[in-house]
């Protein structure tokens, strides 16, 4: 009897001990889960238990196990059971609420609007004061020709550099390497400056031989061209570091200088522009240097490469982006070049500025500005969703993942289309209404006097909408570093723009150069949408290979 009770006591004690061990083992399992989550093997659990400070020699007394390896078998099983009982949200697709989506749209749209702020500020200046940093409401057509030529050339020559600057600087800043970001920004600025000067020298020499413009004209053209080019290069340094507002402020300061010099000091408009542009240039460059200055801690970075790529490598990796930047600005101004070089009444030089045409283009540009802000939202939404959505889809549903992005794309596409059309209509009516309100002003009456302005506006506003679609596609490609897809579409679009523009302007009337823009934009939108489909169909690959 006594033996039986002793045995029972031992059993109870053993039971207590087992229970005590079980509780302790469960506690270890909790610690393991806390540290690594769902373990992949018992061996991993053993390593983690060791790292938690448990010792092999304590295992027999504390857990009733020979060592950590034996303990880990039990812990592993408990971990698996615990993990399986906790559930996970597996809903496909975008889980963000509608409210959040609306807020994101507003945030990105405003940021996109801020992107166009410098141009908007210049438009505001010209409307309210008659001056901008490089334009004047009282320009004669020959003066406007000079400025337009310089301006267009500056955009085309620097387009590639600003594109590459944005890409390279943003990349280095995103990995926290301000030293290299600064170096590469300055290097690209210098390359840009050298190219701008080389083109200027070439143009000057060419003009010396073929006399396209009188010598005095070419000097003024080159002054505008050089100063504007430098301005774009410095501004793109600032843009790539996401300081959009300061560019608008500096341009405004430069414009104030122009107004002061011309209106109050009495200098000629070209001199005032040259001086105003110089001031803006100096401020822009100094501000860019200030932004890229290295503060105490930033100088100490030693864990990342401080090397700027070799010129050959820099060229190799950036050439598609450079080409795109160049082609894009060429595309943007090609119709003007075609129209203004076609035969027309009153044309004096081979290239002759046409006010009604430019007014039509600028009018259409207003709606383009509103559309571009939508792109900022579309592309940010795309890049922010990428990882999140990839996480939602299991690997065996990879096709559904790509299909999900077709829906995403169609929504963005449709939104842009509707928004673009509404913008065109709204801009048309607002400008017309303003025209009515201010019809007592001669200049306003002149604005609406030419049918060419209206004709150009109609075609150009549709062209800009198509261009925005193409740009949206390209921004998607660029997000995953697939500039080649964009290049393929813009190259053909450029060719179409050129051919249609030349034929239309020469066979119909000079202002039909705008048809080239329309046809080119159409081709650009269509082709890039075609590539966008291909891109989305293989989005899993496109994302993977974006390194």
């Amino acid at each position, binding site marked *: 009897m006594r033996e039986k009770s002793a045995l029972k006591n031992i059993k109870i004690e053993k039971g207590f001990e087992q229970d005590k061990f079980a509780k302790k083992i469960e506690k270890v399992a909790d610690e393991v889960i806390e*540290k*690594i*989550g*769902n*373990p*992949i093997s018992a*061996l*991993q659990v053993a*390593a*983690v238990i*060791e*790292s*938690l*400070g*448990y*010792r092999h020699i*304590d295992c027999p007394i504390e857990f009733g196990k020979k060592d950590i390896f034996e303990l880990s078998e039990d812990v592993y099983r408990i971990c698996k059971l615990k*993990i*399986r009982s906790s*559930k*996970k949200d*597996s809903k496909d697709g975008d889980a963000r609420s509608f409210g959040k989506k609306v807020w994101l749209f507003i945030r990105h749209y405003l940021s996109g609007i801020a992107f166009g702020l410098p141009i908007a500020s210049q438009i505001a200046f010209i409307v309210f004061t008659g001056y901008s940093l490089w334009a004047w409401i009282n320009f004669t057509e020959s003066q406007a020709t000079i400025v337009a030529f310089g301006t267009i050339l500056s955009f085309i020559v620097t387009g590639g550099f600003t594109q590459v600057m944005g890409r390279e600087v943003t*990349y280095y800043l995103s*990995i926290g390497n301000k030293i290299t970001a600064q170096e590469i920004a300055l290097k690209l600025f210098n390359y840009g400056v050298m190219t701008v000067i080389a083109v200027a020298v070439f143009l000057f020499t060419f003009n010396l031989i073929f006399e396209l413009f009188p010598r005095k004209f070419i000097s003024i053209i080159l002054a505008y061209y050089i100063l504007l080019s430098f301005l774009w290069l410095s501004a793109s340094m600032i843009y790539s570091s996401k300081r959009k507002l300061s560019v608008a402020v500096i341009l405004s300061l430069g414009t104030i200088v122009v107004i002061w010099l011309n209106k109050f000091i009495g200098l000629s408009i070209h001199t005032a522009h040259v001086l105003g542009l110089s001031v803006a240039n100096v401020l822009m460059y100094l501000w860019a240097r200030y932004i890229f200055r290295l503060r105490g801690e930033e100088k100490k970075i*030693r*864990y*990342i*490469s*401080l*090397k700027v*790529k*070799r010129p*050959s*490598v820099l060229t*190799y*990796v950036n050439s598609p982006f450079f080409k795109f930047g160049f082609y894009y600005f060429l595309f943007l101004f090609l119709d003007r070049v075609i129209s203004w070089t076609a035969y027309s009444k009153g044309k004096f030089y081979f290239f002759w500025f046409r006010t009604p045409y430019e007014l039509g283009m600028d009018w259409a540009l207003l709606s383009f500005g509103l559309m571009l802000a939508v792109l900022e939202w579309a592309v940010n939404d795309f890049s922010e969703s990428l*990882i999140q959505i*990839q*996480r*939602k*889809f*299991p*690997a*065996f*549903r*990879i096709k559904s*993942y790509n299909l999900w992005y077709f829906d995403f794309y169609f929504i963005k596409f449709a939104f842009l289309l509707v928004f673009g059309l509404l913008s065109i209509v709204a801009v048309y009516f607002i400008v017309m209404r303003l025209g009515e309100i201010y019809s007592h002003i001669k200049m306003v009456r002149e604005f609406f006097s030419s049918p060419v302005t209206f004709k150009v506006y109609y075609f150009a506003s549709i062209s800009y909408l198509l261009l925005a679609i193409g740009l949206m596609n390209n921004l998607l490609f660029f997000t995953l570093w697939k500039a080649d897809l964009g290049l393929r579409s813009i190259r053909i679009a450029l060719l179409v723009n050129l051919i249609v523009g030349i034929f239309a302007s020469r066979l119909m009337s000079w202002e039909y150069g705008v048809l080239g823009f329309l046809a080119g934009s159409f081709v650009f939108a269509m082709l890039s949408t075609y590539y966008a489909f291909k891109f989305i169909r*293989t989005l*899993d*690959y496109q*994302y*993977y*290979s974006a*390194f």
Partner: protein
Amino acid sequence: MAGTVLLETEGTYPFVGGGVSTWADILVNNLSEFDFYIYAVTGMPYVEYKYKLPPNVKFVRQIPLWGSEEPFEDIFFEIPFSSIYIRKTKVNERVVLRKFIPIFAEFLSSLMDPFSDPEECAGYIWLMHRYFSEYDYKQTFKSFVVWQKFKQFIVLKYLEDNPFLSEDEIPSVYDLTLAMRWIYHYLMPLYVDVPEVHLSHATAAGFCGLPSIVAKMRDGTPLVVTDHGVFARERYIGVGSEKSLSFFAKKFLINLSILVSKMLYKLADKVLPVCRFNTTWEKIFGVEDDKIKVIYNGIDPEVFKPKPKPEKTRNIPTVVAAARVMPLKDIETMIKASAIVREEIPNVKFIVYGALDVDPLYTRKCQLLIKDLKLENTFILAGHHPKPSEIYNEGDISILSSISEGFPYTVIESMACARPVVATDVGGVREALEGFGIIVKPRDPKALAEGVIKLLNDPELRETLGRRAREEVLAKYRTDLTINEYRNVYNELISKNERKISTQKYQD
């Protein structure tokens, strides 16, 4: 006997400081009869050496795994771009499909099969290296067919082989991307040229050892692996603790690391852990007993030698520690222990020398704990010390509260300075300290405090343990002893290999 050695480092010498780098620096400086080619795998591209390289370091090739838009730019900076460009232009879908995919598919199969033969896989590694010596690395990995093959492999084979996966264990599309990009990044050492040398020495059984595998498979070059910590075990813990990674991602990365470790262990002629503690894990990952030879780290006893305490701590019972402030060092337990010690010895001071910026959140946590326990005048986080050899002489004893270690230098350095150590029983600490200090259970502030109180209250014991500790260091943990052991291993393997080569020649 002398020769050329390919020394492979991972995240350490000569670009980053720390224990392993110090070890490597001592090695190359003292084995001056050997010429070293250093292949340094790094996280990001570095620009500055942390160490002055001796003349027998003939070449340093850096292999950054991340942060290079075009890997050749940071690896082959001396090669003209035109030759790289030719390699790039040679890559097309057809070439990748015919020449790369067959090897890559076999490699993937080995990777996902826990019972795969490491030697066979080493063969694929060598074949991939041969392919990359002709065709561009990045261009190949970016090709559509590589991605297709990988996708197909995971979706079909992995899911078929593991039919009972729970929901969170099924890989997502993002996991696929991550995994394939890891392969691209971690196999980067296969892109480099592998020199013909007399011996290759991987300082970790990790990705840095890939060129060693190539050298072994191609030329039969003798291969030595040193384990400071066991790479695969560390990956279990390190990768496992990554909260942002999914189950599949962790499993994939750990499997990849273990496969590389297993290949190196299989092909190694000698595996040289720095403490016996590592051998248990090495055997688990397939190292045969007869390959293992423990070579303990050594220090210079003329640099680390006993000196009287400086003025500032002369009359204060002082406990010093050389430890970076991070969770693995469990500074929190040390802080709690100091509170217990203060109750017994009110004027005690704990001074911790070591970087505070490794884990700023943890540092903050420690600072708050010090404040909560009102230990501002007792426990000092002193930051980096410019002269490590002076640290131990500032105290009466030193302390180590880590929850995980290999064979910590701080223990033998303190022993050399005749300052007895109170340390937690982790890694190889017991091997060095048993009989010469106090070893306590990890994560136990009370035990740690008792050890400290015992030593601080007993000057005689302190003096005896300190003296014996220095004698132990002089007898077992001197740099020259360590170096001689490496020298012997190098010479033995090189002459053995040369004998093998001459026999082969004779037979041919």
